[in-house]
Every structure is written in C-alpha cells, then in structure tokens.
C-alpha cells in the first residue's frame, strides 16, 4: 500500500517535473492567447467535431453533465476536450512563448498597468468567445464572476480579519434590492413603481450608480452589526450576523412594495458580460490593493493578536469597521449585479443555502488569499453546475469534498498567499538563463 502510494507520488512529481521543464518558460500572455484560439476553434469546428464523435451537441460545461448522464460517451468527450481545448491552448502557448516573453518584458518596461490591461483584454476575449456558444454558458460565467466577488468580499472579513461573519447573503439582498429598486423606479414602466422617470438610453450610465447605491446600502446594514458586535469577538459576531441575515430576509418578505415573498422582477437588462467582468476585476483589484497595504495588513494583525495590534499603534476598532463595511459593500455590489443578471430576485435566494455556498467557497479556496477566493468561487460554481444531473447526490458530494479538504488542508487550497499581479504577468525566461 505504502509502496503503491509512493509510486503514485513519484508519478505525480514526474508529471509535475515534466510540466515545469516544458512550460516554465511560457508567460501568462501566451496562455491567454491560447484561450481565444481554442474558443474560435470551437466556434468553427466544434459542432461538426462533436457530432462526428457521437455527441449530441457541443459539450457546454466541459462535458461533465453529459459524462454523468451517459458514461459511454466519456471517451468521445475526452477526445473533444483534448482536440478543442488542451491541444490548441498548449500548442499556441508553447509556440508563442519566445515571442511573447519578449513582448511581455517590453510591455512591463513601458507600463505595468498597460500590461495588466492587455492581459485582461485577452482574458475577456477568451471568456467572451467561449461564452458566446450558448446562453447557459454565458449565465454560468456571469454567476461565477459574481460568486468570485462575493467570496472575495467575505474572505476579507472571515479570512483576512479572522471574524466569522454569516451575514453576507443579507448584504447581497440589500444590494440586490437597493440596485433593483433604483433601476426599476427610474427606467421601467412598472405596476408598482409607476412609469419610467428617465429615458432608457440613460440606463447603462446610471447602472454603476445603482450598484454603488446597493453597495452603500449593504455597508449601512453592516454598520448596524458592527457597532454593537465589535465590542466582543468570536462567536458573538457569528450569531449577531446570522440574526441580521434572517432579519433582512424576513423584512423583505414582509415589504409589499418590493413584491414581498414573490420577489421583484422586470429589472432592465443592464448586466452584460463586459459589465460584470469589469466589476469583478474592479473588486479584485481594489481588494488586492487594500489587503496588500499596511492598512490592510492591520486586519491580519487584529486577527493574529488584537492586543498587540493595539499596542503597536494600530487603530483596531477603525480597522475592523472599515474591513466589515468594505466586505459588505462588495457583497452589495455583487447582489446588485446578481439581480440584474437574473432580472429577478426573491428573498428566498438569500437564505441559509446561499450562506453555506459562500462560506464553502471561502474555506474551500483558501483563507487570507485572493487566489484562493477566485479558485474557490470558480471551482465550486462550476462543480455545482456540473454535478446538477446528480440532483440530491450533489449535496452529498460537495459537502464530502469539503470535509476531506478540512482534514487534509484545513485552511483551504491556496491560503495565505499574496496575489502579486506583476509577478504573474512578467516574462518567464529567467529559468532558461539560470540553466
């Protein structure tokens, strides 16, 4: 048994070694170029290839749903995955690596910001092309980006600051309803809110204001928790914030103006993919800036030892309140986007189920880490879509996965790691120079 496992470990390390040998000199830029190439390829030859391999249509989410429904098609799906995604991406990345290493270093010399923007544009191009194949993909992608925002904002409170807040669905609800009421009131002829007050062409310009308003509403709610509960630490905040979540939910359920338990619909269609993408990037950028500054590191100091933080001139009370309001703000913005992506919200969405989902994403991905939040949100969002055909079994597999994770990596997959963008985008020819 032991020998077997060590052999397995040896094989894994050999694969890793092989990968690092062949791909360590491939810069991020080349990988990002590979993504649109694969997406374009799928656009042109995806359908005939899928039909040729005996698949009913192009596998929407990497074929997982199909694999679970019809296990006999697994080889065809794997071939499809290799031909459409893995091979093109790897080949493009490898071929363009020498050229793009030079390009990346030149870009970095000109301006780090410019280089980041170009990387993001490439990433967006890949996502846009990939998601344009089906509406289901597009929706999943948007919801995943929103999940990233929510997870990251909760990580600021639960990971970076080390409190245990359970009120994130409540903040999302406040943001969702705040932003929805704003847009519906101004731009939609609605039964409850009356005729539109402003012409529809203004709506895209006012949408950021709606989202920020939703975020501020959530922050206001957070202030209501922060003031009484930050005198104590630990379990008290968990209980108070849980109560807050239920209060928000039942408050909205009883508010007839916004539809009560039936929910609020007819939001204008404002949350297109680029908008959601931009907000998600903004959220990641600002959060990463914050947690990497000394002011943001103060959160870690408060978490690891509050008394010492106080004695080292850190204004702990202010630090905690800023972090809490910050987390709530982004949850509110994410909620606003969520409402406009689905174009319908009801209070039932923001209950204990949502809380479990978000907490799982935070702890699965990794505490105190932007990478972790992105990874956790993306992997659990996709996983929960992929395992959909299993129905009930899905809610056994995902929690089981979490239990295993808690046993083997108690702080999550990628925890306590700094997200250094410049390091990520820099050219990768150092290893060759060394050897």
């Amino acid at each position: 048994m032991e020998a077997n496992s060590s052999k397995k470990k040896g094989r894994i390390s050999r694969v890793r070694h092989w990968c690092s040998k062949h791909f360590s000199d491939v810069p991020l830029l080349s990988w990002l170029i590979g993504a649109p190439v694969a997406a374009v390829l799928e656009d042109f030859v995806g359908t005939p290839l899928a039909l040729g391999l005996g698949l009913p249509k192009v596998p929407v989410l990497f074929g997982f749903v199909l694999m679970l429904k019809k296990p006999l098609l697994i080889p065809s799906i794997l071939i499809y995955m290799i031909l459409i995604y893995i091979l093109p991406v790897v080949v493009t990345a490898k071929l363009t690596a020498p050229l793009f290493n030079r390009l990346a270093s030149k870009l970095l010399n000109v301006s780090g910001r410019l280089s980041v923007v170009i990387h993001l544009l490439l990433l967006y191009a890949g996502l846009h092309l990939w998601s344009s194949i089906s509406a289901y993909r597009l929706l999943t992608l948007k919801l995943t980006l929103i999940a990233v925002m929510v997870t990251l904002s909760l990580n600021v409170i639960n990971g970076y600051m080390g409190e245990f807040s359970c009120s994130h669905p409540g903040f999302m609800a406040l943001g969702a309803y705040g932003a929805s009421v704003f847009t519906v009131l101004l731009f939609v002829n609605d039964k409850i809110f009356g005729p539109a007050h402003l012409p529809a062409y203004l709506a895209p310009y006012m949408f950021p204001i709606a989202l920020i308003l939703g975020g501020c509403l959530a922050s206001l709610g957070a202030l209501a928790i922060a003031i009484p509960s930050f005198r104590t630490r630990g379990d008290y905040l968990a209980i108070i914030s849980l109560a807050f979540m239920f209060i928000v939910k039942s408050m909205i359920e009883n508010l007839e103006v916004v539809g009560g338990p039936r929910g609020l619909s007819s939001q204008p269609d404002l949350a297109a993919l680029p908008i959601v993408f931009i907000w998600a990037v903004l959220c990641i950028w600002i959060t990463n800036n914050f947690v990497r500054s000394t002011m943001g590191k103060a959160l870690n100091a408060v978490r690891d030892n509050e008394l010492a933080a106080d004695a080292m001139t850190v204004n702990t009370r202010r630090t905690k309140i800023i972090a809490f309001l910050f987390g709530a703000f982004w949850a509110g913005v994410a909620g606003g986007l969520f409402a406009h992506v689905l174009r319908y919200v009801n209070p039932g969405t923001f209950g204990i189920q949502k809380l479990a989902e978000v907490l799982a994403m935070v702890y699965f991905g990794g505490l105190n880490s932007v990478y972790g939040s992105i990874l956790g949100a993306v992997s659990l969002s996709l996983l929960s879509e992929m395992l959909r055909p299993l129905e009930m079994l899905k809610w056994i597999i995902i929690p089981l996965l979490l239990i295993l994770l808690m046993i083997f990596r108690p702080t999550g997959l990628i925890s306590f790691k700094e997200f250094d963008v410049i390091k990520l985008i820099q050219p990768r020819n150092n290893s060759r120079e060394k050897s």
Partner: protein
Amino acid sequence: MPLLQVKDMSHDFGGLRAVNNYNLSIEPAQIRGLIGPNGAGKTTIFNLITGIYKPTEGSIIFNGHNIVGKFPHEIASMGIGRTFQNLRLWRHMTVLEHVKMAQYSKITYGIIGAFFGTAKRNREEAEIEERAFKLLDMLGIKELSDQKVVNLPYGAQRKVEIARALATEPKILLLDEPTAGMNPEELAQMMDFIRQIHSELGLAIFLIEHRLRVIMELCEIVQTLVFGEVIAEGPPDEIKNNPKVIEAYLGKEMVA
C-alpha cells in the same frame, strides 16, 4: 520634568485591589526595573500605563499629557512602546511586516490610498519599508526580514518583539520579562541587545524582571512590588539587601 509620572494609581478587579497607591517617575533615558513575586501586579501596571485597563484612581502623566482614558493605540502612538510577557507576535506575518505594521500611526494615505494604490501610498509604503529595514539592520536581524515569525527560534522572536516595539518610535520602552524562558547564552545576548538599544536610541526603559542578574546589571533604580504595593525602591544593591524584599521572596526567618 520626568518623562513618565504615575501618581497614586490604584486599580481594582471587582473587589480585589490589584494595584494600590502606585507611584512612579521615570526620567528620559533612564533604565528602571520592577521586580516582585508572581501575581504581585507587575503586568497589571504595564497594562494600566498602556491603556489596556483604566485605573480606578490616580493619574498617569506622559510627556506633560494626562493619558488616563486614552485608547491603547493613541497611547502607543504618543511614544510608549511595549513588549509582552508571553510573546504576542502575529503568527502569519513576516518580520518585515511586523516592523512595518508598527508604523501604522505614521500612515496618512487613508482608505483611498489603500484601495486605489495611489502614488502617495506607494511613496509612504516605500518610506515605511526603508525605515523598517534600517531598524532591522541596526538590531542585527535584517537577514530574518522575510521569515515568518513562527519559524524563528525563541530568542529571535523576543528580538522581533522588541524591534516591533521600537518601530513605533517610543520615548519609553516597557519590557515585560524580556528574558523569560531563556538559557544563559540567550540571556547574555538579550542583555547586550537591551544595552545596545539604550545607548543607540537613548530612550527610557522600564522593565519587569525576575532575574536578579539582569536587574543588577541594567537598572539604575528598582522598585519591588508585593501584593500591588511598592515595598522598596532604590538602587539595585540596596534592594538586594533590603530585609523586606528578602522576606517577600524567601519568607520570614524562623525565630527559634
């Protein structure tokens, strides 16, 4: 004028009087000691001075300002630095981050700077980092700067705690048993370290200690605290031979 003056300070924990009519006056650049048996209230006095507890009675004047009732972080940024008896380091942070964090009160870029990475923030962060490196260099622990504190040996952790306290640029440094749990070699190093800090930075030091050797070699004046009351005060030689002190530590001699 003394740098730090405590007048008639008392503190009650419920019905228990932990500190009774405590008086203290420390001149700039003076090293003073505080000794006493376990549970005498030494750490309580530190916590009272640094604002963690609020004294029931009495006043604490630091640099001409009454600091009773101020928040601990305000008192710290006025210039009272401290270390803790049981190390209170931030376990997930590196040595450099510790020393940078202790300069929190010098940050002026605000939340806008923190969120958007403005030029002002970058400049201030660079300044803080430079000062941090300078301090670590002076204390001879620069090579540890990117180590996580939990990976360091005990003696180095003690040094990091002192370095962190010094980064707040204190006028007086409160050391709570800086040599607790150290072997003789580490002890000698720590004493050199304290002497070096004192001579290079010229700050006042107030230290709690159990080991007579440290007190004898470092302090100018020593107070002995028993059950929250000062029973003797004077130069270390006098204190060592004071019958009251001997009684408090060793008990009364049986009269046959």
